[in-house]
């Protein structure tokens, strides 16, 4: 140990600069990367979901307006939507047992849609293109800018119904929160009459 001071100049020179993290502890202020509080306006609900984890899915019940923690997501019918970064899965097809289907609707905003469409219904399917990722029914929810790598919600909303007949209309409002964190998925939904 007594030789350490004499080694210090060598250490200074050979890759022993202070670790940059020492002077920059994680932000001590409250972070906004938590799932936000549910906002209810009549029957319409708004929620920002933290889907930033790379390998963790977050499960949402549209009827309860809350995140849930299913023990076995493939068999559990407590959730409608699952989110992991830009991936949105529904509890149907290869993703779950609730027989959730979605249908894209263009030309309507959320308030303007009053009935489920007659056709266009689909659910999550097994990987068809060999990339190891299922063909998600909500896979076309965003537009991708290859120059800026920014994801922007596509100009469409979705009708969503489960196997029991409960239906919702769903709008994906955004992918970034106010401080620019990606995968903070803004959702807005309301009940829809059964199809």
């Amino acid at each position, binding site marked *: 140990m007594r030789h350490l001071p004499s080694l210090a100049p060598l250490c200074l020179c050979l890759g022993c600069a202070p670790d940059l993290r020492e002077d920059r502890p994680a932000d001590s202020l409250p972070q906004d990367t938590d799932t936000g509080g549910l906002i209810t306006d009549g029957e319409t609900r708004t929620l920002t979901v933290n889907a930033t984890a790379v390998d963790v899915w977050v499960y949402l019940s549209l009827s309860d307006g809350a995140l849930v923690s299913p023990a076995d997501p493939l068999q559990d019918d407590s959730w409608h939507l699952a989110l992991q970064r*830009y991936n949105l899965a529904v509890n149907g097809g290869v993703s779950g047992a609730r027989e959730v289907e979605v249908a894209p609707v263009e030309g309507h905003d959320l308030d303007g849609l009053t009935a489920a469409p007659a056709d266009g219904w689909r659910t999550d399917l097994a990987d068809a293109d060999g990339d190891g990722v299922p063909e998600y029914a909500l896979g076309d929810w965003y537009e991708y800018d*290859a120059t*800026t790598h920014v994801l922007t919600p596509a100009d469409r909303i979705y009708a969503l119904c489960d196997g029991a007949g409960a239906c919702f209309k769903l709008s994906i409002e955004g992918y970034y929160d106010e401080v*620019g964190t990606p995968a903070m998925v803004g959702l807005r939904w309301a009940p829809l009459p059964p199809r």
Partner: protein
Amino acid sequence: MPLPAPLLLGLLVAAGSAHAGPGDDEPGAELVVTATRTATPRGDAPVAVELITREDIAASGAENLADLLEGQPGLDVERSYLGAALRMQGMNPDQVLILVDGERVLGAKDGVIDLGRFPVENIQQVEIVKGPGSALYGADAMGGVVNLITRTPDEPVRAEVHLRGGERGTADASASVEAKGDRLSGQLVAGLHQNDGYDLSPQDEATTASAFQQWDVSGQGRAAISPNFSLGARGSVMRRNLQGVEVSGGGAVLDRLSAIEEVQLGLTPRLLLGARSMLTLGASGSVYREQQLVDQRGATALDTYEDHQERLGELSAQLDRATGDSHLLTVGAEAMGVTMESPRLDGGTGARARGALFVQDVWRVPGVSGLSVVPGARLELDSWYGLVPTPKLAIRWQAAPSLTLRVSAGAGYRAPSFKELLLRFENPGAGYVVQGSPTLRPETSRSLQLGAEWAPNDAWWLSANVFHNDLNDLITITTLKAASAGEPAQYGYTNVASAWTAGLELAAQSQPTRWLDLKLTYTLTESRDETLHQPLEGRARHRGTAQAGIDLDQLGLSAQARAALVGARPLTGDTDADGVPDPIEAPPYAALDLRLQKRLLGRGAVALGVDNLLNAGDPTLLTMPPRLVYLSLDLTHPRRDGA
């Protein structure tokens, strides 16, 4: 006049193959090493060598290599978030080899070695050889070689101090001491540099160039252990911290901090083997470490910390042997090992080993006055892609005492970087993936250079050079899988592109009176990406420089103006927000530097300067530093005559 081979060898012994001595006052007599790997008078070099001397460096007011090369004819210094990158003859920065005393340097990011990190206080001269240098230097010397020759003592004792202060927190200080004896000589140089960076788009939080603080210490010495054996050693240490701000596409404000450390050590024993041969050995090592920290404001989701480290070890042996009066043969061998540790590499590490043999003969053709033919070749074996031969032939003919003609043809190549071979990167937000390819082949080039230098009298010097470079197997990022519904894009590196660059370089230098120096240059650069059927990005077709220096010796006053006129540059950008790059054209610009200096009776000088007086630059297409006014003071001891 060409020198006979034994005399050349004598020069080589005097100067060393790793270091050229101080330049002679006579044009063309300065010693250069980069053209042939042996010390040669510049005028006798078989390929043209552009030389920036210590005096040129002092007169330019530059503090680092980026500032110094920015005004040099035929060179294109492009600034970006990667730092200041060098293009030459239309070739990419990673196709230009940068050396310090003949040794490679580490720390390229996306192929860019930031010229801003090389302070000029320890540089004796900069040698620039355009065209492929792979026959002597191996990988990465496709477009040319820039060799920084560090300072060597040339006086028994000398101490110098340099101070500079300017706008935007610019502060530079350096000092050097040197001593030269019969058997021992050495020099120590230290510098401190800092700058607040700059922001060309103050409407957002992002900065254009990072603030930095840097210190560096370098030293070298040589001991003549016996009349036939000397041992040289050199070392340098550098630390550089950078702070910048970036705004992501999604609007996140990110503080970016970097801490760079670099250490270089080298030994060069030199052994005279009789009167006509010399053996130079070299052993060197360097370490480069860069910590990068990203701190998202108001959140931690985008916070990252990465620690990148590179290590390089090189061994070399070079034998120079003069045969008769007509041959100077150089043969050599090199071995090199490089490792990189980076969280961005698949598996976290990369390693490569490389060995090479090279040979070159400077043959002064008997019976043809002034004609030298210089064949050379290098055979390099790399652990990633195997054998690469790179031949070269250069011919120099002094057709008349005032006229020198040069022709050279050669092959060059660039090794795929660790990033291109091993990258594994997934964007956490957008999900796109970029991956390297271990099966990449090297990029290759074939080049032809024709040049002429004409000095009709003592007042004028003219030169013209025509070049053509054919580039094949260029490595580019291609879309392996386009983004589709729910599936992000995948990008990868492939050998797909081919291209060519061609052009004309003209230079005229004149000293019409004793107190006035003029230099004009023009470079025409044509280029074509044969894959995309469009000009290569960022290359200005027309580029001109003008330099005027006035030296009123009796008053101790000197003034210098350096101007660059750069034509429109083809670029790409997404102008219609459809996510697809569109061709755009960056407008022409002019840059002007002025400097006024008063000498202090041989004790140094004070100077007032303005860089980029016209304030050229914009946030997206030309991110050069805005106008900078500075004041500098140089002191030297003992008193230097004429300084």
